[in-house]
């Protein structure tokens, strides 16, 4: 994914999160943790839903293990952190790239 498209993804991720949490987008930096923003379990799954709708992807997020997401493809699977805004953007970028490659 080129840098410009990557930046667009981060912007979109920030706006989806801000929208779900009803907070100004300026409060979101890549290092901001979702729990610092007061996101409770239902807020997190609303964010996941918003991102899936926005990017037409499926995020294999489980409330049972809410701090990471396991992303798999043919070459294997990897655990990715799901704690900060930057973590979420990484996961989305990965899934968007995987979708484009298909």
């Amino acid at each position, binding site marked *: 994914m080129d840098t410009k498209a990557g930046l667009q993804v981060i912007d979109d991720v920030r706006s989806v999160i801000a929208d779900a949490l009803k907070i100004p987008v300026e409060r979101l930096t890549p290092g901001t943790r979702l729990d610092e923003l007061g996101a409770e379990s*239902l807020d997190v*799954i609303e964010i996941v*839903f918003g991102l899936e709708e926005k990017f037409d992807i499926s995020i294999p997020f*489980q*409330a*049972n293990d809410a701090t990471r997401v396991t992303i798999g493809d043919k070459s294997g699977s990897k655990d990715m952190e799901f704690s900060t805004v930057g973590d979420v953007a990484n996961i989305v970028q990965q899934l968007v790239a995987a979708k484009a490659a298909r």
Partner: protein
Amino acid sequence: MNRVVITGIGVVSPIGSAREKFWSSLVEARSGIGPISIIPTERLAVRIAAQVLDFDPAKHFDPKRQSLLDRFSQFAVVAARAAVQDAQLDITEEIALRTATIVGNGAGGMNTIDDSYFRLYGQDATRAHPLSIPRLMMNAACSLVSMDLGLKGPTFTIASACASGTHAIGQAFQMVRMGQAPVALAGGTEACLTVGTIKGWEALRVLSTDTCRPFSRTRTGLVLGEGAAMVVLESRERAVARGAPIYAEMLGFGMSADANDITAIDPDGAARAMRAALLDAKVNPEDVDYVNAHGTGTALNDKGETAALRKAFGASAEYLAVSSSKGVLGHSLGAAGALELAATALALHHQTIPPTANFEETDPDCDLDYVPNTARNAPIQNAMSSSFAFGGLNAVLVLGRA
């Protein structure tokens, strides 16, 4: 105040719909969870559930009647008939006029709603079936039980999501105890394994894709189920006078609301309901031998429920046997509390503690005795059955040996 006993049990469940089969499956930890086959699965990410597979409505209802009953009502009526038969209850006109019928269900006629909306929005149908509303209404199951058995006393539905069945039986217990009804038929029913409902649950991200492992460190979430259980409650005096079978005595009922989160369990609220039930039963925590837990198999519930048990039972939690039936029954929402109350009554009756199925590994956050995988013969004097619903609504029953 009357002493109140359970004289009849009727179930429709994923592990059998005869009382003996239901009990032996619980004791042997034979799970009713399997691949979904009663609805199309191509649009589902989660394709397992605890379904009632051996249920043929045509065996129980003539074709004209059957068209009036959504699956959740069919389950309730069949379970109610079985409970009345089990209790050897003769419904005379005098009894019929005063018997209370209280049924809990969380979702109503979801199969009817799903089918009807699919036709309207998916297939551009121009009209709905004329029986849509009578089939889907929340009180349909309760009303059809009363119609089927000719019961004409106080009759209503309780909807409190996953605590519905427990609230219904608790309410019926209080009415018989206070003399408002000499007999009550109470329980819960649910049949909401539809594509629409499962998609909704998938979005909550709490469903397991393999199986339900309550209290095990390796648990991966809950598994939806369906079914119904109905019990006959009556005064002990009346039951003894007519020589009825007695499974267990109803001793106490406790309720609370968390007034906190819409989905997450609150150990304080859950513990308050347990303490209220013990107080109502006049049973000390150390005199409870067995708890049939809510135990859904989600990370949050099982940890929170363990904390609640410790809070309510204090030091005696160490000696308590706790098991969840959801590894075999799945989570049948509004029916769950009633099926689990039936399991608890049968545990007292057989003096056997049914195990927690699919238990693999101890979790440091769940550090009680969960009776893993193997049933235990142990003297049970008093037992508890707990339900903690979405919306923070808690209902707990305490039973004693008959």
